[in-house]
């Protein structure tokens, strides 16, 4: 019956259903660690999501006020435990910015090599865990097989597989062992086909596309407004990468390296001819694009690692040793953001003349990425909440500090 002929009395009465409060977490298979999402659901449709964090809070910043910067490196390993190298790099560069300390070119190449290798590992874990959230278990096992090889390389380099504490303010703990660079080369050559396997199994998989395309669309304005950074921001088409647009003391490391920033500018990704095409259903800024940006960044990082190996081999000189343990910090404040795999990881240090900083601050990218989940998850199904949270690639260590 067309609406206007309805007399005012007989309004369509919807069956009143009451909402249910559902706790997804802190122990839940797909909340990537101890994150609790309090869902208010009406049947399968999620009315509101309130994330509760703080279950993994280890007072990293309070510790920072009682130990010297070099002693704080192990704490930075445990912020984003999937990309510990990038965390160390961020903190080391911030302290060097405060001290005004310049490291040798050879050290910079080694740092780029190690940071990009860790980015590959982190992105592979993010991609395959996302596949696991959506139900396909096989890519998860394949991805971890490749990551094991990277961890073996790091174990040979600095003795640890997860919390390396390798890049320290002033340089790196010790130089790369003999033959290590050839092992990196071999790893890269056999890794390229594996990326295509993941593409075949996930990116162009019809069911994966149906589950992710058009789900959790994040507009560029909202992304910037909520401070989202990294693949989440680039997934929404904002062409912003600190390795190219960052502060000089960070972008100096990447001078002389050619790489593309993966963001859909002008309707197409840079040289995307050999990757699976963007499916028609995918909307810019949805979960699929975030996943796709990460997969393409893996390839860029592989190119960067190859260039770093070449440059490291051709530069003479020695790798710098870290600064003295009790180095006095000058008065002043320094804040620096670096491009970690999950997004822009910012560190701030306030020196007051003694060797222990007055205040230390870690600004985490997943913290802001998580804050936008509440906006994206209104009115979606429960399965989509898992898809959206998975596409944000959250690590709770970094969020809770």
């Amino acid at each position, binding site marked *: 019956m067309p609406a206007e002929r309805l007399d005012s009395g007989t309004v369509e009465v919807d069956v009143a259903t009451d909402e249910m409060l559902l706790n997804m977490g802190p122990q839940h298979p797909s909340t990537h660690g101890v994150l609790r999402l309090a869902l208010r659901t009406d049947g399968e449709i999620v009315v509101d999501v309130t994330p509760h*964090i*703080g279950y993994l*809070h280890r*007072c990293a*910043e*309070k510790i920072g*006020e009682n130990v010297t910067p070099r002693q704080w490196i192990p704490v930075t390993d445990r912020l984003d435990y999937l990309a510990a190298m990038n965390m160390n790099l961020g903190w080391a560069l911030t302290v060097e*910015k*405060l001290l*005004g300390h310049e490291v040798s070119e050879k050290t910079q190449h080694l740092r780029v090599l190690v940071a990009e290798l860790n980015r590959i590992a982190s992105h592979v874990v993010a991609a395959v865990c996302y596949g696991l959230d959506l139900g396909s278990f096989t890519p998860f096992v394949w991805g971890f097989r490749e990551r094991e090889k990277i961890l073996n390389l790091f174990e040979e380099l600095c003795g640890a597989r997860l919390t390396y504490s390798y890049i320290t303010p002033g340089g790196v703990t010790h130089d790369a062992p003999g033959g290590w660079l050839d092992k990196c080369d071999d790893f890269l050559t056999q890794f390229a086909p594996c990326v295509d396997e993941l593409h075949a199994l996930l990116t162009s998989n019809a069911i994966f596309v149906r589950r992710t395309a058009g789900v959790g669309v994040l507009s560029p304005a*909202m992304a*910037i*407004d*909520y*401070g989202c950074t990294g693949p989440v921001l680039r997934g929404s088409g*904002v062409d*912003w990468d600190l390795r190219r*647009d960052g*502060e000089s003391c960070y972008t100096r490391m990447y001078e002389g390296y050619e790489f593309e920033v993966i963001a859909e500018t002008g309707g197409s990704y840079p040289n995307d001819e050999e990757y699976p095409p963007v499916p028609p259903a995918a909307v810019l800024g949805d979960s699929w694009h975030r996943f796709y940006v990460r997969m393409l960044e893996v390839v860029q990082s592989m190119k960067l690692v190859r260039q770093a190996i070449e440059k490291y081999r051709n530069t003479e000189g020695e790798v710098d040793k870290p600064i003295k343990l009790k180095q006095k910090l000058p008065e*002043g*404040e*320094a*804040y620096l*953001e670096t491009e970690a795999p999950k997004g*822009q990881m*910012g560190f*701030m240090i*306030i020196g007051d003349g003694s060797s222990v900083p*007055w*205040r230390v*601050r870690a*600004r985490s990218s997943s*913290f*802001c990425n998580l*804050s936008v989940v509440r906006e994206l998850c209104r009115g979606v199904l429960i399965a989509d909440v898992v898809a959206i949270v998975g596409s944000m690639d959250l690590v709770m260590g970094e969020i*809770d*500090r």
Partner: protein
Amino acid sequence: MKIENMLKQLEDRYGRWITGSNAEVIDPWIEVAPQRLPEAARLLRDEPEWQLNMLHCITGVDYFEPDEKKAAKVDWQPHVEVVYHLSSMVHNHRLVVKVMLPRWKDGVEGQLPELPTVSDVWSTAAWHEREVYDLIGVRFTGCEDLRRILCPEDWEGHPLRKDYRQPPEYHGIKTG
């Protein structure tokens, strides 16, 4: 240098609410009066030549020296400083805005200092303000649900304050 003339332009145009600035340090900053913060934030974001559309993070710093010996040597008065790191993706430049607050509201121990919120200008500020409230203890008026974000809801005290004593136990659990 670009940042120096930016600060000069800011001062001569908005002298009324910029109460201080410092260009020589590593990260040049300007200081804003607490009450004028929302207006300054909106201006900094919307003016075409600044367009600081990205709020990186809000940090609370507690300047207070507990033991007297060192307190004598220090040149600043005890206060709480809230630092805003802004940057513009359009012009690719950065700015630090600081706000100085008394440690306790009008001197009364336990009364948290007040500061108007900027979460309506940058939405990311909501969570950062909750964290500064949780760890440093600054009440952001106008922030819709100012709850503790990292510590449990019923935790007493603000851990990152220099004179913070950790309670011996929490709900019967020894806190070490």
